[in-house]
Structures are given as structure tokens and as C-alpha cells.
């Protein structure tokens, strides 16, 4: 064994006390679902973790009713200060149970423990801590004095950052005075179930947070429920579009966090070693299953070869494998369906003349895996330069001038994120100005913070999560 093979360093799962079966968390109590229960499997082993209830329309109705009741009787009338105290409590319990949550998340999602441990879970606690402080300061979110909660918020989150997305949804909603019904993704319901337990430990009044599991039909019933006042969805643009249509003509408020095809622009004066790290972090973080991934590398033509050489050398050091191993950089793809999509799109990219190179890593026999891959020779018209792959696949395009870089970066119906790498401050700011993207990272990538608004332009959705703007999404009022 060579040094770089690093002996296995698995995080123990003994910290988890999982049940075999999870019900729906409605009105502060667990209850079975009306639909057919389903299993969640660990993407790295294909082994079943637990069974989860599927909420049918009756369950959705019960969950919304519980949320309404809690809104009317408890959470709505409660002072902002007290709401904030509950959220602070939750933040602290999240910190206390951080390791357990990280292990559960890696198990259920397939992402490396080093990400859940160092990124997802710390951010979850930070998100609740941040929003807790807003609860008694709503007069300053920018909607005028005494803004009002919407009421019952229906929230649907994706599988790529299960607990983190839960925090992005629940923390601001509760701080603003809404009660929520949240549905985690079908393939990653586990940490939401643990969160129910945390709500109970925090003594959160029954019905303030309701968690229902299920697939698309459950989500559809939830957003269409007539007693829902506010809908927040993070997921694919296709589903976001359907929700926007379903809500047309209603009085429901809607925020959408959808797909992306982020451009990561590397100028020839970039801090090169850091740019390589940024490219790697931009597309291989969470196996590229990130809506704001830097999936299109736009590299200035005169440094294309140098960047590619260094990038490939760096990619060769990425360690793919057991998500629970502390040295794993690249974990499993979340599901077979996602793996098939990635494979199909990469095949299309090659068929269209792209040249694919994958990091030399052995893929485990069980589970869903895709080696970190870079496709060069991609043109703006290529399928893989336009479609969101949502996997560890980087498409490489070149540009000659800043204007061309901007034009290519903006040449997409999406507008979520972009990266700029250059040592020239003046140019960085000018290019950042022109990019049609909600988040622009300069000389860094994939950074998130509850104080920093996140969200897209164009078909990447509308509304922001994080910061003052994120709070506004859960309030009405002002003049």
C-alpha cells in the first residue's frame, strides 16, 4: 500500500440509533401514512436503511390542518423573541448532535462524511442560529414596520443537501412566524426524521413543524392544498415550472430554487493553483450534484492546456469510495436514476465530439458511482454545455476576451451561479456586473452562508434564501 492509499478511516455508524420504520411527523406526533411505504437505500451499498411512510392526500390535509392550528393558536400569536429562542435551542441541539447527523446524511445521501461533517451540518446549525436572531427583528427586513407571516408554508426540498435544504426552508419560515409542512426528497428522508426528534427535544410546540415523506404525488398534493399560503420549492426546473403553473391564479406566494449551468471563468492572470482547486470544488463537491455547480469551465484559450494538465493531475488525487471514510473526496451518486442521467448525457457529449477524460479511480462494485470526468472540446452548442448534468462532469469551453467569456457564460436559460478567477480586481468587478447569475464567486466557489442571499436569475427560479432577502420571502407587509 502506498502512502496515498490511506488506510481505511471509516466514521462509525454506531452513533446512529435508527428505527426500522419512520412514520409521518404531524402535529407533534408520529403517525402512519396512507400511501405505500417505501425504502431508502444507501447509495454506496444499495442496502436498505429504513422504511418510510408515504403521505397521501388525507395525510397532507392533516399536516396542513395541524400547521394551520399551530399557526393560529400558538406560533402566530407568539412573540418574535420567543420564536427566536426556540430556534436558538434547535441550533444548539443541531450542534450537539452534529456527528450523528453527518453520519446519517452520508449514509442516506452517499456524499462524503467530510462534506456532511465540515459543510452541511455546520451550515445547518448556523442557518438556524442566523434566522433565530431575525425572529424579533422583522421590522428591519425591508418590508416596513410590523410585517406579517404568510401562514402555512408548504416546502419541498431535494436530495442533494437534505438537511441543509431543510434548514434553508424551515429556519426562515419559523423565524418569520409561519408554520410549515415540509416534504424531504423520496431518496433522502432520513435526516428530516431525525430533525423531528430535534424539534421534540427543543420542546417546539406541536404542529409548528410537520414532516411528511413521500414521492412526487405527495409534493403535488401539498403545493396544491388550498389552505397553504406560501410554497417554497428547491429542485428541478421542470418541477418548478409545474408548481408555478399550478399556483397561477391563486394567492399563494412562491419561491423557487431551480437548476443551473454555472460558468466558472478562468482568466489567464488567475491565481492558477487556487483556480484549479476552485474548478475541482466547483464541480466535484457533492459529486457535482449541486444546482450551483461550476459545470461549465470557461478557460481563456491561451492557458487552456496548462489548466487542463494541472486539473487532470489534481483530479487524479481525488479519492472516490465509501462516503463514511473520512478520506473520501467523491462519494456515491444518489440514485440509479441519477446515475443513468449522468451516463446518458456524457455519452451524448462524446457523441457530439467532446473528449472525455476520467480520473483513474476504481469504482466499487456495489452502489452508484461515476468517476470525476472532464469533457474537453465542448462548444456552446453542445448538449453537455446546455443541459444540467447534476453529476461529477465538467464541460470545458474556451474564450478569447472578457466579452466573449461573459457572452458564453450568459448563453443559457439558467442564471444561478458563476465563478470568476482573475487577479485583476477591476476586471473581476466589471465581469461580475455583467454576469446574469444570482451568485457570483470570485476567486472562490461553492461558498454558502446564512447571511448571504442565494438564488437565481431566469429559469433558475426566483426569490432568495439567506440574509434579509431570504427573510422577505416568508413575510408580507410594508406599505
Amino acid at each position, binding site marked *: 500500500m502506498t*502512502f496515498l492509499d490511506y488506510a481505511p478511516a471509516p466514521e462509525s455508524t454506531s452513533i446512529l440509533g435508527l428505527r426500522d420504520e419512520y412514520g409521518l411527523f404531524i402535529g407533534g406526533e408520529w403517525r402512519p401514512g396512507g400511501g405505500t411505504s417505501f425504502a431508502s437505500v444507501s447509495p454506496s451499498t444499495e442496502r436498505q436503511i429504513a422504511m418510510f411512510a408515504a403521505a397521501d392526500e388525507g395525510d397532507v390535509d392533516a399536516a396542513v390542518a395541524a400547521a394551520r392550528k399551530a399557526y393560529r393558536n400558538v406560533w402566530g400569536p407568539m412573540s418574535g423573541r420567543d420564536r427566536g429562542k426556540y430556534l436558538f435551542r434547535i441550533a444548539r441541539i443541531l450542534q450537539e448532535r452534529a456527528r450523528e447527523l453527518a453520519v446519517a446524511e452520508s449514509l442516506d445521501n452517499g456524499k462524503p462524511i*467530510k462534506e456532511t461533517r465540515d459543510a452541511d451540518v455546520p451550515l445547518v446549525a448556523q442557518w438556524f442560529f442566523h434566522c433565530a436572531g431575525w425572529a424579533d427583528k422583522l421590522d428591519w427586513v425591508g418590508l416596513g414596520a410590523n410585517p406579517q407571516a404568510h401562514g402555512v408554508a408548504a416546502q419541498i426540498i431535494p436530495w442533494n443537501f437534505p438537511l441543509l435544504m431543510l434548514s434553508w426552508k424551515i429556519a426562515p419560515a419559523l423565524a418569520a412566524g409561519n408554520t410549515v409542512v415540509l416534504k424531504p426528497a423520496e431518496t433522502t428522508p432520513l435526516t428530516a426524521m431525525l430533525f423531528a426528534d430535534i424539534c421534540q427535544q427543543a420542546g417546539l410546540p406541536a404542529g409548528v413543524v410537520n414532516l411528511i415523506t413521500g414521492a412526487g404525488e405527495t409534493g403535488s398534493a401539498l403545493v396544491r392544498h388550498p389552505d397553504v399560503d406560501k410554497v417554497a420549492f428547491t429542485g428541478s426546473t421542470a418541477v418548478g415550472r409545474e408548481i408555478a403553473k399550478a399556483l397561477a391564479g391563486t394567492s399563494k406566494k412562491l419561491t423557487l430554487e431551480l437548476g443551473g449551468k454555472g460558468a466558472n471563468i478562468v482568466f489567464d492572470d488567475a491565481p492558477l493553483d487556487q483556480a484549479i482547486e476552485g474548478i475541482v470544488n466547483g464541480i466535484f463537491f457533492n459529486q457535482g450534484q449541486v444546482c450551483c455547480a461550476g459545470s461549465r469551465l470557461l478557460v481563456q484559450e491561451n492557458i487552456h492546456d496548462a489548466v487542463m494538465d494541472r486539473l487532470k493531475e489534481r483530479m487524479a488525487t481525488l479519492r472516490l469510495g465509501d462516503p463514511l471514510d473520512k478520506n473520501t473526496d467523491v462519494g456515491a451518486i444518489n440514485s440509479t436514476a441519477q446515475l443513468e442521467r449522468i451516463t446518458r448525457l456524457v455519452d451524448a457529449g462524446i457523441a457530439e465530439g467532446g473528449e472525455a477524460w476520467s480520473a483513474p479511480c476504481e469504482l466499487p462494485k456495489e452502489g452508484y458511482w461515476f468517476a470525476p470526468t472532464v469533457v474537453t472540446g465542448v462548444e456552446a452548442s453542445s448538449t453537455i454545455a446546455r443541459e444540467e448534468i447534476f453529476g461529477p462532469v465538467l464541460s470545458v469551453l474556451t474564450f478569447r476576451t472578457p466579452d466573449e467569456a461573459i457572452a458564453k457564460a450568459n448563453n443559457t436559460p439558467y442564471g444561478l451561479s458563476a465563478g470568476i478567477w482573475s487577479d485583476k480586481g477591476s476586471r473581476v468587478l466589471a465581469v461580475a456586473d455583467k454576469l446574469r447569475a444570482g451568485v457570483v464567486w470570485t476567486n472562490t466557489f461553492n461558498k454558502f452562508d446564512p447571511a448571504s442571499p442565494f438564488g437565481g436569475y431566469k429559469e433558475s427560479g426566483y426569490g432568495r434564501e439567506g440574509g434579509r432577502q431570504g427573510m422577505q420571502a416568508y413575510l408580507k407587509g410594508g406599505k
Partner: protein
Amino acid sequence: MTTPSQALAPAERAVQLLGGDLSEVALRQHLEGLPTVDAVGLEARAASFGTRSIKTTSKAAALDTVIRMIDLTTLQGSDTRGKVRSLVAKALVPDASDPSTPRPAAVCVYGDMVGNAVEALGSAWSAGKDDGINVAAVATAFPSGRASIGVKLQDTRDAVAAGADEIDMVIDRGAFLEGNYGKVFDEIVQTKDACRRDDGTYAHLKVILETGELVTYDNVRRASWLSILAGGDFIKTSTGKVQPAATLPVTALMLQVVRDWERLTGERIGVKPAGGISTSKDAIKYLVAVAETCGEAWLDPHLFRFGASSLLNDVLLQRQKLTTGRYSGPDYVTID
């Protein structure tokens, strides 16, 4: 200000890379054309090395590798022959309870102590060959470097004559910060020349940048590159007398430089972080940085060293823990 037309000593590497008419201007343009460093990104990358979890067999191998890479060091005004003998004894038998314990790469002393170190090492002295312990000497008016060039060169020649296998020189940080890159360059070239032994071989030259005084990462990259161009065999972070001494980001950056140099020329240069690395845990982070930046070929005492005094004993404690399965204590390792 420097004279733009100043010609520089015709160091072989610099001539090959920059052409025959070596001048201050050419050197400056070359150094200023190097890729810049974004500090936040570099530090984040360095931190990521620290999150590697090196366990069981990997840890055992790593600990032995660390020991083999140590330049066991004493650089005190109060150094005596007795102290040097004691240091050498520790190098010869790092852990009396375990004869399988490897020996460090070198002992590092002030120039006037070289003879004592050689004598104390006896047959274990490498004498420039590969199968023993080297004697490294700090030179060129270490640690400040504030002396005339004549004094610095004589300092070097004396140490080499006394048997030093390696010379750890300091660059003129003042000249570097003035922008007088040519002066820094020429001094390294001349010091290299002073490393020449009568038989035509050279003592290995380690060039100390004193990164704690250069402060910025861009300076560190330029100084590293300059030192290599001028003929350094190793680039070394610090004297240990200035804070901060070795840091993981600075070392990671210097590793990137030697990796780039190899990519450009095929030639491998060594890196030596020195000062402040006192625990196994920290040392292993450096090994990770080496392996993930330059590849495993660099996990070799010819290409990577730790300048340290207290590190060895912490590694030995960890080594004993791996062997016995229980935690050891400071009374179970010997002091030098």
C-alpha cells in the same frame, strides 16, 4: 533602486531558462510573471490536508517517514560540544526501547559545531554518501544574514571544510523586499560556489527564505523560484528564529513551486519546513501536503525534510502507542 542593466552571475538553471544575458531586468520580469497566489484559496487547500485521517498502517508508515526526514536541530547561542554530542546520540538511537526505529536524516548545527558533530557521529556519519546521518550547518550569518558577502562566504567555506554535508543559508530578505532580486540571486550563486569541496563535489545547498519576513505568498513564490534559479538544492521556509516559522500554507505553496519546476525542467528540488512543527499530527499533515501536491516520489529525505528539535520525541511517543496499544509518556522517551 537597482541598476537595471546589472548583469547577474551565470547560474546554470537561470541561463537555461532566461537565456545567456542574465540581467536584473530579465530576472524581475520572470519572477513577476509567475502565477499569483490567492491566500484564502491556498489556506483552504492547506487546511484540507489537515483533514486527512491517517490511521493504522498508514500512520505507522507515516511516523517512520517523518523520522527519516528530520533534521534534528540545535541552534542556540548556548550550544556546547556536550549539547551537540547529546543531540547526535539521540540521532543515533532515537528510541532505545525499539531498535527498529529509523534515524533522522541529519543533525543541524551552527557552523563552528560541524567538527564536533562529525566526530560524535563517527562511523554513522554519511560523509556525503547516502547511508548515514548527514551533518547540516547553518551559514551566511544565520539567522539574520546581515553581514558582508565575504563573511557569509567564509562562514560557508569553513562549515564545508569542517565536513558539513549540507549548508542551510539565509537569503538577504532586506534586499528581496527592496526589490533587489539580483543581489539575492548573486549571493545564492556565490554561496553555492562556496559549497564546492576540494574534490569538486558540492555540499547540498538549502536556501532559507525566512517566509515570516517575506510575509506575502506572492513573495514566497518569487523567492522560491529565485532560489531554485540560482542553484538551490532545497528551499527552506524559516530559520526558526522568526515567527511565524513554517506554516502548512507556506509549505504547500513551496511544494507547488518545486512541482512546477519539475514540470518545466524535469529536475526535482527539495523542500524543508523548519520551526514550529512539534507534533506528529502536524508533521503528518505535511506529508499529506507533499504526497498530494508533488506525488509520493517526494516522500523521500532527499526531497523533503523537517527542521525540528522537539518533533522527534512526539513521533516516538506516537510510535510507542502504535506498538503497545497504550499511550506513552515523556519519561519513556529520551531527551537530547
